[in-house]
């Protein structure tokens, strides 16, 4: 039993501060059993609503134990009289000699409410039928001894509630911070859910967001009791009355009976910003079936506005970020985003001594396409090029619309040969694409790409040099007939030959 040496006020011996109510109860019963030569001492809490005495802790034969016993004292019995009069009552039955010492105290709800939390019950002290009965003086002594202990029980209860209060205050401060900073961190939804789980510790928290365009409630993330977060993107609920209870809640049509049943262990919290519902946060203790404290529910509800705002802000932030980082036409990242990733990948390649290849592609005769068929057709060409590129890359590859019809692709951990293979595939797939041009004679258009490739560390040792060499290779292709692929090392070799006087090859391997 853990206890520290902090002395409480009072006369009873061994008055120390116990860690937790249970430790305190064990000590109290153990002490009274020893001091008054009891066979057993039991602590019961009385439930006024049901009239039941519920056993919390027992001590007998040197062992403390919790019990599961709910018993109703007979009207007029010794226990019932003790509870009525709040005075100790002795009794002797065939089961043994008993002394009932009742207690009652009230304390204010530390959660800030005006209600009073009552604590009522009795301690049953027991001697075997053959042992001596409780004398009146002994009964008075035992009762006084217990009452002095129970004053500390009151304190233990109070401290326990006070700790909860302290925890709530800390939660308010820290959660406000969590929600306020959600915007600045990656995976802001995760951040919000983690914050809720850290301070409330529900069995589960789930976040659903409304997809207005498709009229759906879509699952986003779920956090379990251990704080483990997973995607629930597979959950999609049509946002129609009667389609699902979550939809009904969001639409404000939920049935009261259903909510009533779950009110103690589930909170469905629609998230609304300026009167518009944007999603649904569900917290539950369904697995443990443990009641969520009303104060916790109230506090989480009071955070509802902040959570909704944080969720909405991060969603907007994601949208803005997407707009500023991605090209709407090709769906490829823009140059600004590329520069950031290029730097990261280059440092990684340098540090781990891994190869890094760079492809620089240019759509052949793109200016003529625009001039001849108009910008709409030019846009279609770019869109198709973007589609072909995105559908052929690995997860770690990073493409970018570098400007106009120029596209750059970063290929981490790829050699020149691997980059060439990918370039060939892209080139071939794009060449096979037929772009409909209804007003032209041929009714369709086909385009090709010129591609230059450079690699680190073979061709260049810096970022700028790597870009420059890929551009050199591209230039070489453009000046040698277009529609081909050139790797810088081969271009360099060809140039050397040119310098030496050999005729330049029409194309590279």
């Amino acid at each position, binding site marked *: 039993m853990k206890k520290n040496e902090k002395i409480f006020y009072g006369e009873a011996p061994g008055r120390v501060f116990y860690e937790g109510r249970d430790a305190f109860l064990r000590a109290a019963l153990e002490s009274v059993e020893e001091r008054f030569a009891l066979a057993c001492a039991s602590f019961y809490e009385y439930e006024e609503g049901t009239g*039941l005495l519920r056993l919390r802790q027992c001590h007998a034969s040197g*062992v403390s134990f*919790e019990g599961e*016993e709910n*018993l*109703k004292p*007979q009207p007029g019995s010794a226990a019932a009289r003790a509870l009525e009069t709040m005075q100790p009552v002795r*009794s002797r039955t065939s089961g043994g000699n008993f002394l009932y010492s009742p207690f009652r105290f009230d304390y204010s709800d530390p959660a800030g409410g005006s209600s009073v939390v009552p604590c009522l019950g009795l301690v049953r002290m027991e001697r075997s039928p053959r042992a001596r009965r409780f004398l009146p003086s002994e009964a008075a002594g035992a009762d006084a001894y217990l009452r002095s202990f129970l004053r500390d029980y009151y304190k233990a209860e109070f401290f326990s509630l006070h700790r909860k209060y302290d925890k709530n205050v800390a939660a308010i401060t820290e959660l406000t911070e969590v929600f306020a900073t959600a915007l600045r961190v990656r995976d802001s939804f995760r951040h919000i859910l983690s914050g809720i789980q850290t301070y409330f510790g529900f069995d*589960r928290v789930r976040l659903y967001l409304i997809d207005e365009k498709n009229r759906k409630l879509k699952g986003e993330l779920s956090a379990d009791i251990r704080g483990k977060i997973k995607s629930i993107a597979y959950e999609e609920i049509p946002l129609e009355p009667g389609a699902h209870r979550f939809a009904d809640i969001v639409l404000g049509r939920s049935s009261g009976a259903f909510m009533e049943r779950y009110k103690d262990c589930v909170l469905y919290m629609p998230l609304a910003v300026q009167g518009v519902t944007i999603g649904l946060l569900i917290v539950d203790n369904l*697995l443990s079936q443990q009641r969520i404290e009303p104060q916790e529910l109230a506090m989480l509800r009071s955070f509802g506005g902040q959570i909704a705002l944080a969720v909405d802000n991060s969603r907007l932030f994601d949208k803005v970020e997407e707009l500023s980082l991605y090209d709407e036409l090709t769906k490829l990242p823009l140059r600004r985003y590329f520069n950031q990733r290029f730097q990261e990948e280059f440092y990684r390649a340098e540090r781990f001594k891994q190869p890094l290849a760079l492809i620089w592609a240019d759509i052949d005769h793109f200016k003529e396409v625009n001039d001849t068929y108009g910008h709409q057709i030019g846009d279609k060409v770019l869109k198709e090029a973007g589609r072909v590129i995105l559908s052929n890359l690995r997860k770690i590859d990073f493409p970018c619309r570098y400007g106009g019809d120029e596209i750059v692709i970063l290929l981490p951990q790829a050699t020149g040969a691997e980059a060439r293979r990918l370039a060939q595939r892209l080139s071939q797939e794009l060449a096979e694409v037929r772009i409909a041009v209804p007003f032209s004679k041929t009714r369709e258009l086909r385009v090709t790409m010129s591609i230059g490739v450079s690699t680190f560390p073979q061709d260049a040792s810096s970022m700028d040099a790597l870009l420059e060499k890929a551009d050199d290779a591209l230039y070489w292709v453009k000046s040698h007939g277009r529609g081909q692929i050139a790797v810088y090392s081969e271009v360099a070799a060809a140039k050397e030959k040119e310098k030496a006087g050999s005729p330049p090859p029409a194309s590279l391997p």
Partner: protein
Amino acid sequence: MIIWLLSDYDHRKHLAFKTLLARFSAAYPDTAVEFSVKSRASLWESLFTHLRDPKRNPMPDIIEIPQNWTDLFSRLGLLAELSSKVEPLAQRRYPEFILKELCRNEGSAFSAPWWLESPALFYRPQALKGAVSDPEKELASWEGFRAALDSVGKSSRRSGPRALSVPGSSGSVSVADVLPRVWGRRGGLFSEDFNRATFTHEETAGGIEDWLELAVSGKVELFSADRFENGPRPAEESAFIISSRKLAGSGRSGLRMLPYPGYPSGGGLMLVYNLAVSASSQDPSGSAAFVSWAMEPRNLSFFTESFGVFPCLRSVFEERLRDERESDAYRHIFAAPELKPNMMVYPTAELLLERALWNLSLKIARGDYDREDLTRELIMAQGEADYLLSLY
């Protein structure tokens, strides 16, 4: 090393464990061991409290749990894997019916089966005179038992002793009370494929109703005032006793034992309790060593015999069965033993049923119970269990 032991209505268990620990301390004086006895509800709450805030609510090193909590708490990451650390687990030295529900992942084990009990019917032949002529035959079925209770009840009201006593009762009708009867009717809380809850199925609801009827008719006293004033009644004061333990002094008081009524073809529901090592134990190997030590035949035999239950280790279990005075009845029970499923949502489903039974018990005690109440409570509990199944 800190151990959490499940509390028991029979104080002999706590004392037996205390003695067991004294033996351990004598054998290993350098290892300090403390134990707390927690109620099932309190243990459940403590485990979840730990999950919510592990730093403020540390786990003990070793916990005793009902076997069918293993899947849930191992999935939640609370229990350490023991299959290679506890020799009887590594060698699978347990009866097959226990191993079957030990862990859903073949080859791993997050708790070691320790002891088991099975509810049975005890009767006092003298009290049945004139009411039952062939106990073995007449008390084999639930209907026969029920009729005998009525006959005995009539005479016992005159002569004093109660007709039926259930020493393990917590006061209300509980899951532990109704499940043997549900099993007897071939019901259960979930369908065989575990895809849906079956609380309202005829076999399950019927089994629950059979027991509730005992409470409604006053054969089982709810929230017993008498027990509060006088303590548990001695065995000799009841004609029938339903208990999953071998009763202390049952031989002296002339009690005889029969299988739980309503399993005509033999068999019975077994309740198995295991020892598990916390995944956050500061001394995982020392804790596993304690579990191994507790499983040693001598220690296991002493512990289980002290409060009238069976050991889980196959050799000790079989030896006990051979020595058992009531071995015919036990052979009948162990002919086709059945365990509660060890699946993630099962313990929660039991809690849902427990809550329904609590509400019904209060109604019965107030005298305003109606059959419709049972239907309503079971429909709601089943809905919640189904919902849980969809989530986990």
